[in-house]
């Protein structure tokens, strides 16, 4: 059996800020983080944290960032059915640890 090759993700440019969490942690757990932030925003009205728009500031190409892994793993998250992965309006990113 041949092991599947790991997809190579787009690496943000050197000018980008630090990721909001440890990149290794993010690879495994960004789903949990996004769901928690979603509930905070929608249910509790707390909007001063990380946003999807914030992710797109560094990871500019969605096809090279979200889609590459999701396709390799045959996952179909529906975030961007409704939300836009737009890099138009910059937002301030938070410095944060894991």
């Amino acid at each position, binding site marked *: 059996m041949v092991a599947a090759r790991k997809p190579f993700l787009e690496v943000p440019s050197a000018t980008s800020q630090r990721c909001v969490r440890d990149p290794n942690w993010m690879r495994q757990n960004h789903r949990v983080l996004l769901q928690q932030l*979603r509930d905070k925003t*929608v*249910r509790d*009205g707390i*909007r001063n944290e990380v946003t999807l728009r914030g992710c797109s500031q560094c990871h500019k190409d969605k096809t090279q960032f979200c889609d590459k892994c999701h396709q390799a793993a045959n996952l179909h998250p*529906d975030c961007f059915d*409704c*939300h*836009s992965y*737009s890099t138009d309006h910059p937002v301030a990113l938070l410095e944060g640890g894991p």
Partner: protein
Amino acid sequence: MSCSRRTFLVRLGGMALAGSLAPSWASGFEKRRLAMVVDLNRCRQARPGCDLCRQACHSAHNVPSIPDPAHEIKWIWDEEFQRVFPTEVHPGLPPEIATSSVPVLCNHCENPPCVRVCPTGATFVKPNGIVGMDEHRCIGCRYCMPACPYSSRSFNFVDPRPFLRTTNTDYPTRTKGVVEKCTFCEERLASGRLPACVEACPVQAMTFGDIGDPAIQQRLASSRILRRRPELGTSPYVFYIL
């Protein structure tokens, strides 16, 4: 210190009473409770023809213009006076009022029936009184739609995106199979802006703020106030000035 059984029970009862009353003292007008006042006299000045509140709202929130009335999505729209206030129509009513149209939207009720029937908690009341809508949790059962006596909820029977003229990328679109409605522009309030309809009104017919705000209180004190279908006990927080 000696304390008889009777004294002990009286004190205990007193403490329990004080505890139960405390939250109601602490709330009142200090608690934020958002409300809107629509001055129908001013609104009529801009009519017929003014549609700016609806346009501003629907373009800010990516509300589609679907021609089929069965699939229509509405956050704020016009309704005839006699349909909005059926119990207020009588021969003494000036004809210009009786034949006028009234802007209607979600009333953000104190006692919202839509929230009571929602099986997933997708629609819920926020501490500031806004009846929120979490489309992530909506399963599209549509119980909330007949529950709402004001028809303020719309269901996406079809994918709404092909019916958008322009898309505001700052606000999400919706998908087929979820219910949506006015949210009192919660996302704009978070950045210190007024709701889109209030901002767009050319005759300042709408006033928005906390129910205790002097601007709201002043407008409510000076005129005759109507609320939609008060007999239902939903306690709407959109007030109309006649």
